[in-house]
Structures are given as structure tokens and as C-alpha cells.
């Protein structure tokens, strides 16, 4: 029984890897799109299996409460994005922006990204996790540069430089963690495994842990897109193909955040080390306020929502930095809701950009008349993302604010200030785009609205009624986070 369960976690990594190889070989893009969808669908099913049955951990992969949340979320969004990217790529090929070789490269990279992300989430040792995040970054760098326009290249180059510096810092942090663990756990492999690290954490040298956390926070923080290291995110989102920006803001940010959370747990286990909370809160608030102000000046629709991703990652980092069961629960819920809503928004934005032939907000007007389905889905997405009541994001923001009030009332003021700023800016921009006299459309778009409706309905469901077992699941994860 346990043997094949062990297989399940491996399958999560194996399937995308095999699919990547197959897609690299597959010439016809239509068939490769189908393979892509089936592969991500299979991985999602396996993730669901993980949900039901607790596989016994061994080897390089391990599963516990925390990373199941991330795995299920990322495989689901990976699956829906693959469905979306099928129709998106068809349109791109018709309009000639992508050649079929590009598409082959794109699908291969897509599946390798999925494989890397699942590996990062399930990796039992910190080195393997670092490698997986590194591979994920490199694949996304390649995909951002796929269009080969000067802007795309510049964005990819910037993403690469900043990403690599971030990853280098993270590697240095990992080495420092190993150095800290080595005297206690002895040399070799088991000084890197999460379980042993967590159990022996109190004996580590606290000063080493502090320095290590600084590097890890800045390193993986760059991947999460927190304030001082966020520069790559808007350009990467805007210049890359839309499925990639959906995957980027839906998944990759969460994977990096997962890494940060793991190391935060390590830090909190060791009492002598500094508490990681204040650093995360500072970075979270900085990115929230900075992104909120930047929203007012954005002219490009994808950059607008990229900054909104930075803002929401700021809120999530703030919530996790705040600590305590309620704040952690809020952070987890907010992360799930944000990934679902943001990828839904990027789905509609992708089709809108294709329909209008431009990404400049000034040239996109009257969407609800010219493209009613897309227009209203964008409005629904934005209503969700700015946190209006019936939807899930309001629930999580409300919990975050109330938990902040409970523990540090003074911090609640900048938090709410940032939320209001972002609310105003996004509403301002969206009303401009969605209503008014419609601008001419460039081409007809066969929009696949299924994934978008799926995401938004999940967010609405979470907003209206949180299923009880989901709540208990998140709660014990929140307790785990400490």
C-alpha cells in the first residue's frame, strides 16, 4: 500500500518531466497543446489523490500539511492555465506573433516549469528545493523572452539578472543553514533535510541563523516580488505571453513564498534567533504601499495587474509576518484567493489584449460593449481583487486587518491605507477600460472562458461559504506555521 503511495508524490514530479520531453519532440502545436492539457490534468489528479491519502515520506520528496496546500493550488492553476493557453496560443499562431518552433519550445518550457515547481514544493531537502526554484526561474526567463521583441528581451534580461542575483543570495543562505546545521547534525545528507532541521533547530547557532535568514529572505523575496527586489515582476508580466504571467503571479510567487515560510518556521523554532516577523512585516508593508502608489501611474494593463500582484504579495507577507493562528490563516486564505483571482484576471486580460491588439490602457475603452463576456469578466475579477465583500479576497483581508488590530493596532493603519489606495487606483483604471465608448477591435477572439469562470466561482464560493474541512485544514497549517 505504502509503496504506490510513495509513487504518488514522485508522479507529481515525473509526469510533467516526461511531458516536457514529449512536448519538446512533438512538432504539431495542436497536438502538443492537447498533451499539455492532459499532462497538467493528470498532475492535478495526482495532487488530489495526495489530498485524500497521506503518503509515507521517503527519498527526496516528502508531503506534510503545509505543502499540500501549495501543491493542490499550483497543480489546479497549472491545469486551468494550460486549458487557457491552448486557445491563447492558437490565436497567437494565427496572428503570426509566434512560430510553431516557438510554440514547441513554449510547451516544453511550460511542462518543465510545472515539474520544477512541484519538485520545489515537495523537495525534502533545502538544496533540492533551491535547484528546483532555480530551474523554475530559468524556464520562466526563457518564456518571458519568447516574443523576441526588444521590450520582451529587455524584460527577460532584467528578470534574469535580478532573478539570478536573488537565487545566488538564496543559495548562500542555504549554505549558511547547512553550516549552522552541520555541527549539530553531522556532515552529509541529513544536515539538509527539512524534518531533521526542524527537530534540531533549537541547537543551531542563532547568529548564523539570523544571517542565513537575511540572505534567504532577500533571495527568495526577490522571487516573491517584495518591495526593493520587485523590479523584474512588472516587465516580466507585461512582456511575456499571458499564460506565463498568470502562472508567474498565480504559482511562482507562491512557491518562493513557500520557501520563505519554511525557513521562517525554522527560525521561529529556535528561540534565541531574532523573530523573522518584523522583517517580513517591513518588506510586506513596503511593497504594499509602494505598489499601491505605483498603480496610479500605470499605462499598461498587464503592468497594472503585475503591481497589484506585488501589492497582494505584500499583504500576504505582512499577514505571515504578523504570525499567530488567525493571521496565518488569513495569509493562507489570501494567497489561495489571490492566485485564483489574479490568474482569472490575467486570463481575461490576455484575451482583451488580443482583441484590442494593444496593452495600453488609454486605447482600451468600452469593453463591456464591444466584448461583453471579456469586459464583464474583467470587472468581476477586479471587483474580487480589490476586495469587495461577497468575494473571498474581502474575507481574507478582513481577517488580516482584524488580526493586526488584535495584536499590533498601530500597524493596521498603514495596512488599511495601502488597501484603500490600491482600491481607488484599480477601480479608477477598470471603470475607464470597462465602460465608455468602445474603441475599435483588432481581431475576433475565440475566448476560452471556462477556466476564468471556474476560478471566479471558487473565489465567490470561498467568500460566501468556507467549507468546514477546508477551514480546519488551513487552521492546523496555520498552527504549524507558528
Amino acid at each position: 500500500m505504502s509503496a504506490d503511495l510513495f509513487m504518488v508524490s514522485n508522479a507529481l514530479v515525473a509526469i510533467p518531466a516526461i511531458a516536457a520531453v514529449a512536448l519538446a519532440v512533438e512538432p504539431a502545436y495542436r497536438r502538443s497543446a492537447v498533451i499539455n492539457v492532459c499532462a497538467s490534468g493528470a498532475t492535478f489528479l495526482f495532487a488530489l489523490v495526495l489530498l485524500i491519502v497521506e503518503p509515507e515520506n521517503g527519498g527526496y520528496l516528502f508531503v506534510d500539511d503545509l505543502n499540500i496546500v501549495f501543491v493542490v493550488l499550483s497543480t489546479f492553476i497549472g491545469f486551468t492555465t494550460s486549458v487557457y493557453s491552448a486557445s491563447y496560443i492558437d490565436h497567437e499562431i494565427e496572428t503570426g506573433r509566434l512560430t510553431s518552433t516557438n510554440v514547441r519550445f513554449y510547451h516544453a518550457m511550460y511542462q518543465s516549469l510545472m515539474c520544477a515547481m512541484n519538485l520545489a514544493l515537495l523537495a525534502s531537502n533545502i538544496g533540492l528545493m533551491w535547484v528546483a526554484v532555480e530551474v523554475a526561474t530559468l524556464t520562466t526567463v526563457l518564456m518571458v523572452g519568447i516574443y523576441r521583441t526588444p521590450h520582451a528581451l529587455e524584460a527577460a534580461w532584467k528578470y534574469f539578472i535580478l532573478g539570478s542575483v536573488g537565487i545566488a543570495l538564496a543559495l548562500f543562505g542555504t549554505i549558511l543553514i547547512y553550516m549552522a546545521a552541520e555541527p549539530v547534525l553531522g556532515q552529509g545528507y541529513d544536515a539538509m533535510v527539512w524534518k531533521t532541521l526542524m527537530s534540531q533547530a533549537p541547537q543551531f547557532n542563532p547568529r548564523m541563523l539570523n544571517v542565513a535568514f537575511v540572505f534567504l529572505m532577500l533571495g527568495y523575496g526577490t522571487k516573491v516580488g517584495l518591495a526593493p527586489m520587485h523590479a523584474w515582476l512588472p516587465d516580466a508580466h507585461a512582456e511575456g505571453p499571458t499564460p506565463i504571467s498568470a502562472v508567474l503571479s498565480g504559482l511562482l510567487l507562491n512557491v518562493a513564498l513557500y520557501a520563505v515560510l519554511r525557513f521562517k518556521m525554522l527560525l521561529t523554532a529556535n528561540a534565541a534567533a531574532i523573530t523573522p516577523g518584523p522583517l517580513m512585516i517591513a518588506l510586506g508593508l513596503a511593497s504594499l504601499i509602494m505598489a499601491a502608489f505605483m498603480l496610479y501611474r500605470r499605462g499598461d494593463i498587464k503592468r497594472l495587474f503585475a503591481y497589484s500582484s506585488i501589492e497582494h504579495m505584500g499583504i500576504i507577507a505582512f499577514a505571515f509576518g504578523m504570525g499567530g493562528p488567525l493571521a496565518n490563516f488569513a495569509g493562507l486564505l489570501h494567497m489561495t484567493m489571490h492566485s485564483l483571482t489574479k490568474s482569472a484576471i490575467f486570463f481575461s486580460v490576455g484575451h482583451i489584449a488580443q482583441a484590442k491588439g494593444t496593452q495600453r490602457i488609454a486605447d482600451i475603452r468600452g469593453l463591456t460593449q464591444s466584448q461583453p463576456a471579456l469586459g464583464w469578466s474583467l470587472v468581476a475579477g477586479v471587483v474580487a481583487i480589490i476586495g469587495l465583500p461577497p468575494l473571498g479576497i474581502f474575507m481574507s483581508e478582513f481577517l488580516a486587518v482584524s488580526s493586526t488590530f488584535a495584536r499590533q493596532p498601530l500597524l493596521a493603519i498603514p495596512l488599511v491605507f495601502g488597501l484603500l489606495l490600491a482600491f481607488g487606483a484599480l477601480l479608477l483604471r477598470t471603470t475607464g477600460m470597462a465602460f465608455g465608448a468602445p474603441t475599435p477591435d483588432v481581431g475576433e477572439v475565440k475566448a476560452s472562458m471556462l477556466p476564468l469562470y471556474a476560478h471566479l466561482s471558487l473565489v465567490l464560493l470561498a467568500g460566501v461559504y468556507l467549507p468546514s474541512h477546508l477551514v480546519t485544514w488551513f487552521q492546523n497549517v496555520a498552527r504549524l506555521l507558528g
Partner: protein
Amino acid sequence: MNGSGERSIERLGGLIHSMPKTAFLFLGGCVAISALPPLNGFVSEWLVFQAILLSPSLPQWTVKLLVPAVGVALALSATLGAGCYIRAYGVAFLGRPRSEAARTATDPDRWSLGTMAVLLTMCLMAGLLPSLVIDTISPAAKDFVGGRMPTQAELSWLSIAPVAESRSSYNGLLVFVFILFSAYSARWIIHKFGSARSRRAPAWDCGYIETSPMTQYTGSSFAQPIRRTLGVIAFSVKERLDMPAPGDMRPARLSIEIKDRIFDYLYAPLTRAVETCASGLNILSLLTIQEYLALVFGALVFLLVLVAI
């Protein structure tokens, strides 16, 4: 509105002739909402005033002083409300029709009239029998506010005394009956002893004959005195009169420029502040890769120094 198809009251007028039933119901509504005695508006205003009169027993100083100010604000708003309903009813329903649409307006169908009538009778009932209304509402208020008003039912003659009989009491039914009785008795006596004859003739209007409907008071002219007295304080109203030189055939133009102070002194600076911060921070998006790296590098060095200390 759907009777006449017009929205702006400046083009209505004289609807009382073309839409008599709506006029009557609208009048009832205006009387109720301007808190005039026989109807329900007055009962609630009266209870609020009684509450204000209890304020000396409040312990906190600021609230004690604040409450009379609120009282005068309420009184001012009640009378201004009455003034604006006089204006609305007078300009729209009374006087002579100012446009074809007003002249040919017709009463709406039975159903809408019916609903208006039902609502008006409810207002009248609440005005006349306030004790019933208070008894039904106060349990709801109890768990909201904690205390509850003494039950009014057993008070004699259906009057209401929120605190105590000796302190103050009000009997809507009696006042209404009193008014009706004296109005009809006066009418009966006059018709009996004086004359009941009446005759139609063109309006006297101090000798002006056949003035056009345009000379009637419009909404803005009706509001001009109040605008001059209170408007200056509230809204910084500026009136500019552009009188043509003698012999110049240009019509004189009176233009009024009303600026809302709160908008100028609260919202405008707020938006300016957000805009400046936004453009200030915008340079962050225009940096070169080097400068972004410098940012990360700075953060790293700063944190390392922090940890080192």
C-alpha cells in the same frame, strides 16, 4: 415624472390642475416629511427634541455641550427641509404651466396612485396614533440601545409621554381633530352667515396684465434669499451679475457659482497628495537594471549591518 415626461422642475408648473390626485398625495408627503404637526414627521422630531432636553443628565461634558448644537442643527435642517419642499411643490405643482409637457400632463394609473395613497394613510396613522407605533418599535430598540421607552398604551386619550406625564406629552389625534373641527366649523359658520359666492377673474398681480409664465418664481429664484443668507457660510456662494451697458441689447446674465467647501478643503488636497506621491514613486519604475540591483544591494547591506550589530 412619467406623467409629464419632464424632470427639471423649472419646466413644470401648474400640475395641480392637470394631475390633481397626484398633487394631493404629493402635498401630503411634503407635509409629512417637513415634520409638520398632524403627521408622523413631527412625532419623531418631537421625540428627538425630548431626548435632547434630557441631555443635562449626561455625564460627559463634551456630549452635554454638543447636544444643544445638534438640536439647533436639527431645527435648522427641519425648517430648511420644509423650505425646500415648499419650493419643490410650489414650483412644480402650483402656478401656471411653464411648458407644453406640464400642461398636457396626466395622472398616473390607479395602481401607482393607490400605493401613494396607502403610504400617505400610513403616515397619517403614525401621526395620529404615535403610541401604537412607539410600542411596536421600542422592543426592537431595546436590545439595540439597552433601555426602552415606557409603554405608551395605557396613557389616556392615546397621547404619548416619552418620559413622564408632567414633563411633556403630545396627542396627535386630538390636535388633528381639533384642527378639522375648527376648520369645518369656521367654514360652516362663514357659509351660513357670510357669503358663499365666489367668481373667477384674471389674477390681480398688482395691475400687471397677462404676464407670461416665465415671470413666475422658478426654483433658483425661490432659493435666492436662503442662498444669500446661509449659502455664503455653507458653500462660499459667489453671484456674478453681468449687466449690459445702457443701450447694449445683450440680455443681463446672473450667474451663481457654488463651490462645496468640504470638497475644496478635504478631497482636493487628499487627491493632490496621492498624485504627488504616485508621481514621486513613479521614478522607481523608470530605473535602469543597475539601479534596481543597487536597491537590492543596499537592502542586503543594510540588513547585514542590522544583524551584525
